[in-house]
């Protein structure tokens, strides 16, 4: 015992040390990463974000420098809080709150303290920054919108949230990321790749030089510039026409699927969502649940399409060989099944062939056609499936696959849809005649309707609509250059196109003719309801119009949708015609029509359901007349949400 006490103690202590080392270095140890090493300071070098140009090369989105005050809580020394708060224009309570938040996130890692200082604040602060240990200024780049239009298309940047950081470690707290529009869908292209410098610190947090001679440092890779398919002039004009209305305009170039204009009303100035005010403004826009300026009506407004859908039924009827263009249908102010009137119709001459059916938008004609299609097969379910497949080949009833981050599927019901609703085979074609005239269960978004007319204008094919035209040093995805065929043979299109042409010549849009341009169009009027105090109440009809022009080799296909605009040619038809003239001729000859649109507002109409009083709709209303809306000048930034001063207080 005497001889081995020290020996034993040495062995025990040695083993104890080795197990302690094992605990510290192997068991407790997390995987070593340069990014986690607190002895290494990481400095990021933010690349230039790609510019955005319109189809004609007009610069829409550029960058401007911005300065964030960053904090590393652990390194903060006692400071003159009062002076610091004054420089940053925050209160002392704010200071304490922000400090706590940063400390909760991490005492060691930098987090933004006051983001996005103005240039002036930065200049003042920079002089005095050395007095405030633990704070530094990080330069970043913010978006600088060179235009006041297209907020819904261009989208905006916002601070990346924690969830995204967890999923994509590329981003750090305070980084900016695309939140909406092309900023979101082309984030990877536009953002580039930030550079990083690893700097060895000492224990006083001083930099003592690059880590390993900077061999792990990377240079920032600038983001790529992109050109989008939007025609800024046309977009601006569309937004002007949409002033004081709610709705959407989608214009597509049928020859390649490029989206020429994507208007939603009401809209807002994209510069509202830049800088320190972004969050405040965004909440204001987002929480406006009545006019919903952040809701892109061109992409997201899903409604029964109304009469424009009739032309699809005509095409399916021809393809299924159940009608010929010459077959006539008698209309007795409606469609009768036995003695039961299934659907009404307006006054026009009767009987009608296909051409007159389309031009006069006769309900009876299309219900007859639709029933022939469905009843051609041995049961209505199979007939509906065939019908639905044809309709879906026009890009209806599902996401179109365009490159903007929001959208709706629309709806084309098939046999099983009704089997579910009514029970297997316990229904027939007479149950579902509303689909014949674009009411009932059929629903579509404006962009789907625009794409549908593009396919008709092309006589049977379309390209997936898209917003990207060129990417610097890259090609656009091949799905946007692939032709998509419909299931209708080319020869069936001519009589239908002729019918749409006659809509303008002698039909429901005869008053909207543009001299020198052969436009083919179709009016639409869609009934709609909302719940007021849980009572289903009908509102004034939506005004819908689809068109393409010229008749042969069309250059533009357009869908216009105006909420509560009443009949199709009243608002939507006029706006579609003006847009077409603007795009094809570059100037407006129908100034009477333009004047009418710019002097009529629907704001009163929109206020009705919220007035709490009984109100009248459709034909019993009078239209609100206002002073002519003026186009905003380019250099005149309107920082308010675009609304009518007459807008009633809600």
């Amino acid at each position, binding site marked *: 015992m005497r001889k081995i006490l*020290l020996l034993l103690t040495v062995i025990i202590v040695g083993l104890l*040390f080795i197990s302690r*080392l094992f605990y510290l*270095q*192997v068991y407790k140890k997390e995987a070593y990463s340069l990014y986690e090493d607190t002895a290494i300071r990481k400095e990021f070098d933010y690349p230039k974000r790609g510019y955005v140009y319109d189809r004609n090369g007009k610069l829409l989105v550029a960058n401007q420098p911005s300065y964030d005050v960053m904090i590393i809580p652990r390194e903060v020394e006692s400071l003159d809080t009062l002076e610091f708060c004054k420089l940053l224009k925050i209160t002392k309570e704010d200071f304490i709150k922000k400090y706590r938040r940063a400390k909760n996130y991490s005492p060691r890692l930098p987090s933004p303290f006051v983001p996005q200082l103005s240039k002036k604040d930065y200049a003042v602060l920079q002089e005095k920054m050395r007095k405030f240990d633990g704070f530094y200024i990080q330069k970043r780049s913010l978006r600088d919108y060179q235009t006041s239009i297209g907020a819904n298309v261009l989208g905006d940047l916002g601070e990346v949230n924690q969830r995204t950081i967890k999923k994509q470690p590329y981003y750090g707290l305070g980084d900016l990321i695309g939140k909406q529009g092309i900023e979101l869908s082309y984030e990877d292209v536009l953002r580039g790749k930030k550079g990083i410098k690893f700097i060895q610190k000492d224990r006083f947090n001083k930099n003592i030089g690059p880590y*390993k001679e900077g061999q792990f440092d990377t240079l920032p890779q600038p983001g790529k510039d992109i050109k989008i398919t939007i025609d800024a002039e046309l977009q601006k004009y569309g937004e002007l026409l949409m002033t004081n209305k709610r709705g959407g305009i989608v214009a597509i170039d049928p020859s390649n699927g490029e989206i020429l204009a994507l208007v939603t009303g009401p809209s807002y100035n994209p510069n509202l969502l830049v800088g320190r005010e972004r969050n405040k403004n965004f909440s204001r826009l987002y929480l406006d649940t009545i006019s919903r300026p952040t809701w892109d009506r061109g992409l997201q407004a899903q409604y029964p399409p109304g009469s424009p859908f009739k032309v699809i039924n005509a095409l399916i009827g021809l393809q299924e060989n159940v009608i010929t263009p010459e077959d006539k249908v008698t209309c007795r102010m409606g469609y009768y099944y036995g003695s039961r009137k299934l659907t009404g119709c307006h006054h026009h001459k009767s009987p009608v062939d296909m051409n007159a059916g389309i031009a006069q938008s006769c309900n009876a004609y299309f219900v007859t056609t639709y029933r022939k299609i469905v009843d051609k097969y041995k049961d209505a379910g199979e007939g509906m499936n065939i019908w639905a497949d044809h309709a879906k080949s026009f890009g209806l009833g599902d996401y179109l696959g365009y490159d903007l981050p929001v959208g709706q599927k629309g709806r084309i019901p098939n046999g099983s849809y009704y089997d579910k609703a009514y029970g297997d085979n316990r229904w027939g074609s007479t149950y579902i005649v509303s689909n014949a005239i674009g009411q009932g269960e059929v629903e579509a978004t404006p962009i789907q309707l625009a794409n549908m007319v593009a396919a008709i204008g092309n006589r049977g094919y379309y390209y997936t609509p898209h917003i990207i035209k060129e990417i610097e040093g890259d090609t656009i995805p091949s799905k946007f250059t692939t032709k998509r065929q419909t299931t209708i043979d080319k020869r069936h299109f001519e009589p239908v196109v002729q019918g749409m042409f006659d809509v303008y010549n002698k039909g429901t849009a005869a008053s909207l003719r543009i001299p020198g341009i052969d436009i083919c169009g179709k009016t639409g009027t869609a009934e709609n309801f909302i719940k007021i105090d849980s009572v289903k109440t009908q509102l004034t009809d939506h005004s819908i119009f689809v068109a393409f022009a010229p008749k042969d080799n069309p250059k533009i296909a357009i869908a216009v949708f105006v909420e509560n605009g009443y009949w199709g040619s009243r608002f939507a038809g006029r706006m579609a015609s003006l847009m077409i003239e603007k795009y094809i001729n570059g100037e407006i000859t129908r100034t009477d029509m333009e004047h009418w649109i710019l002097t009529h507002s629907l704001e009163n109409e929109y206020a009705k359901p919220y007035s709490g009083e009984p109100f009248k709709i459709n034909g019993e209303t009078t239209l609100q007349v206002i002073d002519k809306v003026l186009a905003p000048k380019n250099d005149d930034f309107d920082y308010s949400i675009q609304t009518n001063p007459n807008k009633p207080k809600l």
Partner: protein
Amino acid sequence: MHSREQHRGFRFDWITIVLFLLLVGFGWLNIMSASHEGDIVSYFDMSQLYGKHAVFIGLTFVLITLILSVEAKFYERFSSVIYIVAMLALVGLFIFGKDVNGARSWYGIGSMTIQPSEFAKFATALALAKYMSDLQTDMNTIKDQLRAVGIIILPALLILLQNDAGSTIVYASFFFVFYREGLQQVYLAIAISAIVLAVLALKFGILITAVIAAIVICSLYFFRRKKRASILQSVVILLVCVSFSAGVRMFYDHVLKPHQQNRISLWLRLEKDPAKLERMKKEEAYNLIQSEQAISSGGLTGKGFMQGTRTTGKFVPEQETDYIFSTVGEEWGFLGSSIVVILFMALIIRVLFLAESQKSQFSRVYGYGVAAILFTHFTINIGMVMGLIPTVGIPLPFFSYGGSGLWGFTILLFIFVKLDSNKINEW
């Protein structure tokens, strides 16, 4: 003559010498990594600590040659003289000494400094060996025990008065020597009990300590029927225990300086006030936290020589002296640090083994002293760097930067190598 010298050379214990060389060499590499400022231009760059240490190592070989060429009997005969000189050097500090970090334990000669306490260790070991191996000394008598203790207490006291509490603790290592040389078993029991009681008293308070002591003493009384103490003796033992606990408590509260209190409080996790704990983390515990993080960040294989980010950033204060092991941990990882631990164990065990094989009591006692001193330094230093024991500022033998320390340990070890080489001449 020539052949005799050569013949003699082979009797040196080469295992000890190789272990010594490995430790010194590896230590120097780590000092280089921990202390360099900017790029390494020359290994002997005298403006940098590693350059100076290289010179210290060079001089070590001169020292070794001297020690090994002196006749072995010299050390036994002149041990008293060496001891007296060392003690005078310690006393001289009170007059000529220089304050460094509050401790008055240095002589300044030009730009050089010398720390006599590093040399007092081998002197004390020699003196103790000489005294205990004296034929007239009987370690079973209290009188001679006290004299032996006196030899140790004198330098310990002098060093304590110079405000170098860490180096004082080292003198407790001679307990192992006494025990080996026949100290009664009861002292071992007392030593262990004292440590346990002290820890209990600080951690749980006197009352609980007293209760625990009472339970242990009662159970001893009931279960050791044959050799048990009487009731009166048991009560006296209990009283001694309780007053010892109270004494420790008072010592902690009133004698220890605040920084010493904090070190112990951190080790036993006594502090409950979170605000004060937070402050302590920035002050007393800063070194400890930094060194644990550095060691931990090394992982299994370490970041590589001169590649430690914390070492390069000098995150651990005093990383080239007392905290050199944190650099080993960061740059050489679990494998490298374990090898260092094993090298130390091997060296100490080798010295112990050689000590046991000595024929003369003088050599054996001295060898035991060497092993015990090395062991104490090794345990306290590495234990402290890894947070196993409270912070005590003593160097890691052969590793830490510093001439006095390196030479002190070299002399300590190589006198024993010399004594060992002479054992065939003993009778």
